[in-house]
Structures are given as C-alpha cells and as structure tokens.
C-alpha cells in the first residue's frame, strides 16, 4: 500500500509562491479593467444627509460614483449562517447603501470607479459626504447596562444560555473558589493580502475572482444578493493571501464589485485598502469573561460558571463561541454558561483564528492556573485530576482524545518538570524567567452539507482531482494530492489537485479547522470510487489479466491493479484504459458528514507550554520558547501541519502580548487602522517553536480521521504565556493583550 498520507512533502505550489507567479484575486489582468474604491462612513452613527460628487467627477477617468442614492437595491438579504453550513453566508444581515442610515464607522457609503487605481482612490477622497451624526455606542463601558441574554448566537446554532447539574450546589460543595474577570481587546485579522474581488460580466454571466475561504460561499451569497441564477455565476479563488477568518464569511465587496462592473460595463477590481480591513470584514469583538471555579481541596472541580459580555451589531446576535470547548474540557458536573450581548455601532463581529476558544480557554486556563496555585498542585496534575473521560456536556464518548499524551509528551519535550513552581524564582540579569502551560481544545465540527470531489485518471496514468475549495495557505493542493494518491493507489507525483473554482464539485467554506477533514473526505470518496470503478471494469473485462477476479482481492499500488491470487495477475490502470481506447475515466464522490446529533464528543486537544522573560522594571515581555503538543487525529502532511500549528502558536503570542484595537468612546471609530498601529508579531518577536504531534485514530469525524490544525495551535498558547508571566513575576494579569503598563503598573 502506498502511504503518501503523512509524508512531509513540499508544497506543490511552492514554485508559484516563491517566484511571484501565483496570482491572487486582484492580480488578474483583463482588458479595460476599471478600479473601484470604497468610501467608508466617517461617523459611527447617524445618517448620510448629502453626497456631493462634483469634485470627484472632476478627477479624470472617473466612471461611476455609486451611493445609496443610485446603487441598485439588492434582491434579498440572506440570513447569517456560518459558512461551514454550506449555504449563503453573509458576514452580516445588512447591506450598505440601501438607505441613508449609518450603523457603524467605516460602513460603505459610496463606491467610486475610475479607469486607474490612482484616479479611483483620489476621486473617492474628493467625494464630500455630509452626515447627521448621533451619539455612538461602541464599548463595553458604554453598553454594559443595556446587555441582554440572547436566545441563540452564532447564526442561531448555539444557545445563549446552557447549564448542566446544579451550579449553586456545586459552588456550595467547593472548598476553594476562584473567581476572575478577564478582558479582551478587539482583534483584527489583517491577512497580508487585503480582501478583494475582480468582477467581470459577459452578458448576464458573472465571473468573480474572490479572496475567500469558500468560492461556493461567495457564489451562493452574491447570487442571493443580486438575484441571479447560480448557474450564471462562477467564482474563482486559486490563491488567497491569508484569511484567518475575515474571508470565511462573505462581506459586501464581492457583490459591490459585481454591481460596479455591471454599472460601468467593464471588468472591475475592488481591493480593500489596509485601513478598510478594519471596518469591512468583521473582527474579534471586545469582550469580558467572568469565570467562577469551585473545587475541592484535592483539586476536583465541583462547579464552573462562565459568563461572557460583548458588543454586537444592530442586525445580528453574534458572539464568538467562547463557551464551547471550555464547557467540555473538564469533568465538572455543575456548569453554567451564558452569553450577554448589547447592540453597538459596530459591524457584526466574525470568526477569527481560534474563534471563541482562544478567548474562552484563555479565561478557563488562566483560572485553572490560579486554582493550581491555590491547591498546591502542579498545573498538569490539576488538569489530569479533572480529565474528562467522556464529553461532559453530552455524556457521549469522545470520538478520539489524546489529551493525556499531549500533556505527557509536551511536558517532556519542554522540560516542564524542571521548573521551581515558586513564582519569581528565576532571574537572569534584568530578566525574570517563568514558564507556564495550558490545555487546548477546539471543536472538530462536521460541515452542514455533503462535500463533493471528482477524480479523473487519464490514459497515461496521471490523475486530476477537483474540488471547489481555494488555497489560502493550508497546503490543501499538496495534501489532497496525497489523499488521492493513497485512495487510488498511484504515486503522489502523478496526482494533481485542482481547486478554487465553482465549476468543480462543491465544498463548504474551509473554516473552523474543518477544511482538511471535509475536503479529504470528499477527495478520498471520489478517488476510492474511481479506483473501485476501474477495478470493477478490469475484472469484468475479458481482455484484462484480472478478468474474473473478485474485486475484493484486488490491491492497487503504483497504478497497477494486482489480484492476491496465485500468479498475481495484474494490469495497470493506464493499460486498461489504453487497451479500451479510452482517454480517461472519472468518478465523483460525495461524503455525507455525520450529523450534529452524532453521539460522540468531537474535540481536538492539545497542550501548550511557554517560557517567557519579563523585565519587570521596563515592562517588556519576551517569549523565549514555545512547545505545543497536539492530537489532531490523522496528520496528512507533517510538514504543512507543523507549519500551520507553529503559525497558530505564534498567533497566540501576538494575541497575548501585542494585538489590540479599541473603539474610541467619543467617535465610535477604531483607534488603530493600520499595521503601524495594530501590532502583529514580527520576526524578532517570534521564538523558535516546537511542535509535537500525537496521532490519534478517529473513526467518527470523517473517513480519514482528520480533525484539523488551523485553530488548535492558537488555542491555549495565550494562556500558557500569561501563566508564564505570572510564574516569572508573581503577578496575575487577567487581560489580553498583556502590555508594558500592565507589567510595571
């Protein structure tokens, strides 16, 4: 049996990416290309009273100025449903320029189209928009009093309130109670490629090149908004320059690009500016989480209360699901979780890497560290004492787990037990050194719809597999070739994965770490169907050496079908096709994912370790090393998986120490709107990272048992760092990010 799966193959698109030949969505040349530029509202609340475009029209080359006064009305506003569920997936249930209302700062109030980029940009700057401004409400400080408990969040998929056992009784039973409030600054995704769409009409047919995590999601959403048949809209997204959640839902710009292109009768390119990335495609909301842990003297949890307060938009009850994994991590019989929201002058927040769990588990894992200190237990020992043998929420068995191995192997690799648990016990010159750990968990949710792929083998034995999914850095083209190779029994070099095109079989948006699992399932299903089809043909073919054999006795290796019987008759796929004068053979595969009611707890686990150096006088925190051990089910490619996990862990570092945006209470606008003001980690911030892979077999989540690695690397890394800061300094800083003033304050 060939085993391409798991091999650390180099990325098949490496050459395109290192030579600059990879084309991203706004790098598609077209004759007569026009350039569009969004104009965002300069106030956060109120309405547009007048738009004076006379100066803008003075700029040479201007083709159109679209505002609420002349932009065509959308056909329908689809509901907000997470894109993993495979339907239309607008980022918010609001479409701009349908009336004069301004709901949030930066909301699109105009779109200017010109023949060059410079002219569009400058004409946009010359547009004079007058506002009637009302007082904005954007911060927790301002909105706390107006909070309500929503019935459901997250597109209606998660309850606003959940409980098990008796929380009050659990607290009653506790010998120790840890009660803490954690605050989180808002975060912005800031992939290096800004969002953007190139739109081209040919008659009534629309072609979009879109930077998206799901070309089908773009297709479905734009078709609904514009009221055009799905058969008339094709979306391409071959390369996407990072997303991290801001391209997981479909925001306004693809539809706006299409409307603009129809208006000017030319192809239109709409690339958001960096500043617009802060106001046009969601964010991780500011939030406050309150945790109460009750435990017995020997560290067994008796109660967990977890409340979250955050702002949402005027249109949607959205909170990132921070109470998901946190409710499942430990065997705690008494639990209460509740979301509270208030309506604010903000766009609807959205997924951002480690959505929900990176904040929810920050709170829980920091609180667990405090409990470990109170009970005098080693933090790993405390977690082992509360290990959940089954899913505490449903009582169902885990589909797979591996958490104990993550603790063990992560601790060994990191050298965890060499620490003196006493805070402030290690100093090197001006630096206090500390170590910390945290557990990590992230759901392995099945997609909501069947996932499809197509496999084709040519008469020369080379293979093409197709599915609609785009490539945004995960290595999907590389690993899906590996999956197809193993399923078909051909060398991986003979397999090519084609992607990023709605003409290919449909795939839900690759979000929430579900991409590798669901796409591999579709590819595996299609490739297996093709293999089975060819074997069936061979055994039925009187001209084949395999004629008459039982298909169950046929194995395929290196593209050669061989019967496990005396003489081992064999024939290559290519020979079978050529002999029958067939240019190719093709099969489709559809994978029907398990339902949400599958009787298993499906969570990916990990353990995070960090060592920090803190200069307590100058307030500087430097992360010196990080180790993460993860149990992501089956690993399709150890090279790309390690890279993704490394990136996630360093995201945790950024969230812990750097990344913050704040709404200005007076203006309701973001304080940071550039990469100079919103700090993401640079090379100098990033230590070397160790990744330990704990492979666990999972027969439930999908055919290959792939649980995904996009998020789990980030979850818990921030808590490990905060716990290390405590170990170094003796101080608990219960907020994200931890900055200089917190250390010296």
């Amino acid at each position, binding site marked *: 049996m060939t085993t391409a799966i798991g091999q650390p193959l*180099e*990325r098949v*698109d*490496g*050459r395109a*990416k*290192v*030579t*600059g*030949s*990879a*084309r*991203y969505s706004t*790098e598609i*040349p077209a004759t007569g290309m026009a350039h569009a530029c969004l104009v965002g509202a300069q106030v956060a609340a109120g309405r547009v009273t007048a738009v004076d475009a006379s100066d803008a029209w*003075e700029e*040479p*080359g201007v083709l159109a100025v679209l505002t609420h006064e002349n932009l065509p009305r959308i056909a329908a506003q689809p509901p907000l449903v997470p894109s993993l569920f495979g339907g239309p997936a607008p980022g918010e249930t609001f479409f701009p320029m349908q009336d004069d209302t301004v709901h949030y700062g930066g909301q699109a109030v105009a779109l200017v189209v010109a023949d*060059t*980029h*410079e002219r569009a940009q400058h004409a946009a700057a010359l547009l004079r928009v007058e506002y009637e401004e009302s007082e904005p409400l954007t911060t927790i400080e301002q909105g706390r009093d107006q909070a309500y408990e929503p019935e459901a969040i997250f597109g209606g998929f998660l309850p606003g309130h959940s409980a098990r056992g008796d929380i009050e009784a659990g607290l009653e039973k506790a010998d120790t109670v840890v009660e803490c409030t954690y605050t989180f600054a808002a975060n912005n995704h*800031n*992939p*290096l*490629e*800004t969002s953007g769409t190139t739109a081209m009409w040919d008659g009534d047919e629309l072609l979009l090149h879109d930077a998206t995590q799901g070309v089908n999601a773009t297709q479905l959403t734009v078709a609904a908004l514009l009221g055009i048949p799905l058969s008339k809209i094709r979306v391409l997204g071959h*390369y*996407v*320059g*990072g*997303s*991290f959640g801001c391209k997981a839902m479909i925001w306004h710009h693809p539809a706006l690009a299409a409307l603009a292109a129809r208006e000017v009768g030319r192809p239109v390119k709409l*690339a958001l500016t*960096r500043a617009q990335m802060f106001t046009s495609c969601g964010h991780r909301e500011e939030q406050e989480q309150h945790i109460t842990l009750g435990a017995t003297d020997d560290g067994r949890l008796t109660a967990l209360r977890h409340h979250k307060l955050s702002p949402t938009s005027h249109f949607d009850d959205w909170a990132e699901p921070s109470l998901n994994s946190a409710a499942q991590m430990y065997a705690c019989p008494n639990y209460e979780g509740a979301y509270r929201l208030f309506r604010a002058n903000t766009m609807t927040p959205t997924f951002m890497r480690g959505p929900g769990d990176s904040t929810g588990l920050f709170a829980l894992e920091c609180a667990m560290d405090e409990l470990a200190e109170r009970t005098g237990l080693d933090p790993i020992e405390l977690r082992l004492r509360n290990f959940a043998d089954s899913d505490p929420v449903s009582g169902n068995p885990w589909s797979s787990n591996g958490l104990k191995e993550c603790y063990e192997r992560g601790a060994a690799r990191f050298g965890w037990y060499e620490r003196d648990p006493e805070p402030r016990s290690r100093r090197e010159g001006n630096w206090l050194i500390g170590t910390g750990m945290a557990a990590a968990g992230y759901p392995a949710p099945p997609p909501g719809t069947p996932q499809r792929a197509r496999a084709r083998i040519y008469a020369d034995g080379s293979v093409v597999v197709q599915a609609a999914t785009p490539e*945004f*850095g*995960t*290595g999907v083209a590389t690993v899906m070739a590996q999956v197809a190779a193993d399923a078909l029994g051909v060398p991986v070099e003979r397999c090519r994965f084609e992607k990023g095109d709605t003409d290919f079989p449909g795939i839900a948006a690759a979000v929430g770490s579900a991409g590798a699992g669901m796409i591999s399932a579709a590819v595996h299903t299609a490739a297996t169907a093709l293999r089975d089809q060819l074997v069936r043909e061979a055994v039925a073919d009187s001209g084949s050496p395999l004629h008459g054999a039982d298909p169950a006795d046929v194995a395929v290796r290196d593209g050669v079908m061989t019967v496990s019987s005396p003489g081992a008759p064999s024939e290559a796929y290519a020979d079978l096709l050529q002999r029958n004068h067939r240019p190719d053979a093709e099969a489709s595969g559809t994978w029907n994912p398990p339902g949400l009611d599958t009787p298993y707890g499906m969570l990916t686990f990990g353990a995070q370790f960090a060592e920090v150096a803190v200069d307590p006088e100058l307030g500087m925190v430097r992360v010196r090393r990080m180790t993460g051990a993860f149990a992501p089910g089956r690993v399709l490619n150890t*090279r*790309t998986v*390690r*890279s*993704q996990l*490394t*990136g996630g862990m*360093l*995201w945790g570092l*950024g969230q812990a120490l750097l990344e913050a945006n704040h709404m200005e209470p007076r203006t309701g606008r973001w304080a940071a709107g*550039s*990469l*100079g003001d919103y700090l*993401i*980690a*640079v*090379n*100098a911030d*990033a*230590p*070397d*990272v160790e990744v330990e892979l704990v492979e666990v077999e999972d027969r439930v989540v999908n055919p290959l048992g792939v649980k995904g690695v996009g998020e789990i690397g980030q979850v818990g890394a921030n808590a490990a760092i905060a716990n290390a800061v405590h170990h170094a300094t003796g101080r608990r800083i219960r907020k994200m990010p931890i900055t200089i003033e917190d250390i010296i304050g």
Partner: protein
Amino acid sequence: MSVRGPSLTERGPGLEERGPGPVPVTLSVNGAERELEIEPRVSLLDALREHLDLTGPKKGCDQGACGACTVWVDGRRVLACLTLALSCEGREVTTIEGLAGPDGELHPMQRAFIAQDAFQCGYCTPGQIMSAVALTAEGHTRDDDEIKEWMSGNLCRCAAYPHIRAAVRAVRDGT
C-alpha cells in the same frame, strides 16, 4: 486629459517638470527596458503591478508598514509602495520575477524557502525572499538574533518566521 490649475503646467526654473498627466517613462526592470505611460503620482509598486503586470511585489498596506512590496533598486532593498516610479528612471529595479535564472532555475533562497516551508499563503513571500537575499548580501546573518532583527521589516501573518530564519540559515551555510 483635463488639468486643474494653470500653475501645474508651469515649469519650475531650470527644472524639467513632468506631469501631472501621464508621461512616458522608461524603467529598467529585471534587466529589461520597459516603457510605460503613467502619471507622476504612480508608485513603483503600482507601476509594476498595474502597468507592467509584474504582480510578484505585493500590496499589503501601501503605507510602508508590512514589507510585502520589497524590491531592489540599484541592488538595495526598498519598499516599492513609498517609491515613485518616476524616481526610478535610470536605476535598476529588481523584483522577485527577476530572481530566478533565465532558464527558470530557482535562486538558492527560493529553493530554501520551499525546502523549509517558509511560507503558507505565499502573499508576503516575494517580499520576504527579496529581503532575505539582500540580508545575506548585507552580511546580517551571523546568528538568529541578527537574522530576526534584520528580517523584521517583512510581516508574515501566517507567522512562518522560524522557518524563514531556517531558510536564511540554510543559504548562509550552504546546506
């Protein structure tokens, strides 16, 4: 095209003033003379991407804050977004497209980036590589701390930083 304000067309004393409308420009890019007609306000980055179809240099911020547009002008790494195309006349511009050999043979740094998996989405990669090659020529590769600091002008949101350092080391050490 229309021009606003008569003062714009006046020549400064002794200086040849060009624009503000499109003017013919010759740029030497990757060893070839390229002629284009652009307004003086066009950045080197937009001239390369929008007019010469060289989309290897990336637009990450257009504000000098990310490094994705890093190219070489007369052999030194600079940011194309904050450089006017006209100011590059008479200078040699090198982009990622000019790094591989004429037969398509990859530069050792390009090979090392692939081998070390020093990228994920690939959007910052051309800038990273142009910086990494320059860094090596500058002699700032003595140790990891130096590489870290001198590669810090190139943001990578996928955070492939440890692997980028590994690629630079590999080229330095000839491994």
